[in-house]
């Protein structure tokens, strides 16, 4: 027979292990659900299927591609190999200009069409999404 103290200690260790594994499970589970993948237009072309998850796309805003009306903003994101059309409703950041980098979050309709729910602003005028940078360097 073990003493009461030893039993208690075992109980506590057991409890802590359960709590630990539970919280690890919880974190990993919701990580899986809430991850947003980042894709460049070229990567989107190579996708085999289009799922309904939220993704981010990044690239440069193509010159002379911005179209705007009261509700919507339309523009083209390019990595100089492939383009993708983006439609967006919402607040537009100031650093969003033609010929500059952009990251948009939203849903893919098909390989050529993206419905954005958010445009992320960068604070630095020299910032460029890494994919775009490497694409530019290859050119």
């Amino acid at each position, binding site marked *: 027979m073990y003493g009461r103290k030893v039993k208690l200690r075992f109980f506590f260790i057991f409890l802590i292990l359960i709590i630990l594994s539970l919280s690890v499970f919880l974190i990993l589970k919701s990580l899986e659900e809430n991850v947003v993948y980042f894709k460049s237009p070229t990567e989107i072309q190579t996708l085999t299927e289009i799922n309904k998850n939220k993704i981010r796309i990044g690239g440069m805003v193509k010159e002379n591609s911005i179209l*705007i009306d009261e509700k919507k903003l339309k523009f083209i994101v390019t990595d100089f190999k492939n383009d993708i059309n983006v439609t967006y409703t919402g607040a537009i950041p100031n650093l969003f200009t033609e010929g500059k980098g952009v990251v948009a979050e939203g849903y893919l309709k098909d390989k050529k069409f993206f419905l954005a729910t958010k445009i992320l602003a960068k604070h630095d005028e020299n910032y460029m999404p890494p994919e775009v940078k490497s694409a530019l360097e290859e050119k």
Partner: protein
Amino acid sequence: MASLIGFYSLFSGLLCSIFVIYFSIINFRNSKILDKKILIFTFFQFFFVIISFFALIISFVISDFSNETVFNHSHTTKPLFYKISGVWGNHEGSLLLWLVVLTLFIYLFLIKSKEQKKNYKILTLLFQEIIIIGFFIFLIKTSNPFNYIFPIPTEGLGLNPILQDPALAIHPPVLYLGYVGSSIIFSSALAGATLNYISKDWARHIKKWVIISWIFLTLGILLGSIWAYYELGWGGFWFWDPVENVSLMPWLCLTTLLHCILVLEKKNILTSWVVVLSITTFMLSMCGTFLVRSGILNSVHTFANDPERGLFILIFLFILIFLSLFIFFFIFKNSNKNPTNLFWLSKETSILINNWFMMYFLAVVLIGTIYPIFLEVITSEKISVGPPFFQKLIIPFLIPFLIFMAIGSQLKWVKSDLKNKLYLVLFFIISLILTLLIIKNLKINFLTNTVLLTAAFFLFFITVRDFFKKEFKNLSQNIAHFGFSLLILSILFNNIFSTEIISNLKIGETINSNKIQINFESINQKEKQNYKAIIGKFNIKDQYGKNQILNPELRIYNQPNIVTSEADIKTNLFTDKFITMNLVQNQDYFNIRYQIKPFMIWIWVSVIIICFGGTLSLFKRNYEN
């Protein structure tokens, strides 16, 4: 000229550090009292660093473009205030500021801890010097703020306009005082661990350093948050962006440490835990610097940067972690004879329980922040973890956290009982009823929000009751906890009641939405010192038919040529009205965002209340009896 002085005094500072180490090692073995020379050299080390810092400030003020840092981050037409703040608005200058604070704190530590044992002081100094020398080398080797360029340019490249803002001008120094303040805790915890001096006395002595860094860290985060609110034009104050998260992580750790130090001071238990927390806090601060500076984070706050620097900080970080682990596992002997018997109903138990919650929050933030980096390294898949992840994992656990916070303060140290605790149940019922009333009238249905609101109200009432009841026995704790409940309440109400209208408008157009009418009347131009302002005039008729004029602004800066938008915010006690206007390139349309944000000001006020609670405890000899 100033650059030359700056550079050489930086070298002199490094030389002083080497002298400090040399004399410290001699003094450590031979003498009974602290050698005066150590104190003098520590002072000179600080003196040289501050000279070098002032040299950089002068270079910025006189726009000396032969200095590369000045050339990259300044411009002659910039207002003087932003010329000065530009000093730490860039990588090189902000590292120099790190060094200023590092050397200042160790000097203050030495003169403020006269009553401490000599060897403890010397060891703390030695550990601190390791950090200081690391930063000296880092600064001189990879990011020298005094590099020359030739031929001398006639004009600089200018400071990123969104950094030209009063809140962000003082945000880095305040935040760094918090970050770097934790270095003293780190060094003294390592020294204490080596000498087996982690005890009640140590806790009493280090407590004020913990509180001071905690206050600065809290204020620093607050300033950044306020800035993000009005400058970035999103109308939010926290985005769970990696760069924000890295400042939250040391805060969580430091807050936990703050509470554990009290337990250690009171009961002489949790020694190892306190050492671990002290080490972790500083490591997280370093990690923050590394992650922000290396550019491996995919953040909206990312500024262009250089991977070589990241590598250096990473190596340095590993050396420090290795050193601390070595000391913790091989030298530190937990000589504590006190058995850690905790009675289930006592103040220290509830502190300990909330400790674990804090560690859980820390784990969530940490994983959410660095998981994308790991995934990118392993699978080269680029991902980001959005706010839902953090909200989902943190909000439910805030409920028990708040309840323990409320109950814990009502319990005694060592052993408490449930006598005369009926009011707790009473207050809980009142909170529940109040919540139900609010939620019912709103017709929103969020289970966790409801329960969280109840828990926050519970803490709110308990702390308010204490103000009347407790004869101000632990006023500082009471104020801080009250502030925290107010913070949670304001954030919740802010979340529930916020509304926004986003639209693209041409001048003269009007939009109707949710009984709110926004009329874009006109725009005006104004020339300012280093930007051109386009000021919009918006006539807003709210749901009660009241008219209000708001004037958001667009600023077109001359150098760098960037457009920023200045929100116009009308603040009163209950709600903020917030409007931003953005120009869309080559189009007649302006992008308008109008938001009604209730209780916004209370979020800032409650954080200031929390800080005030902390400040108050500095002026008290004993935390409580």
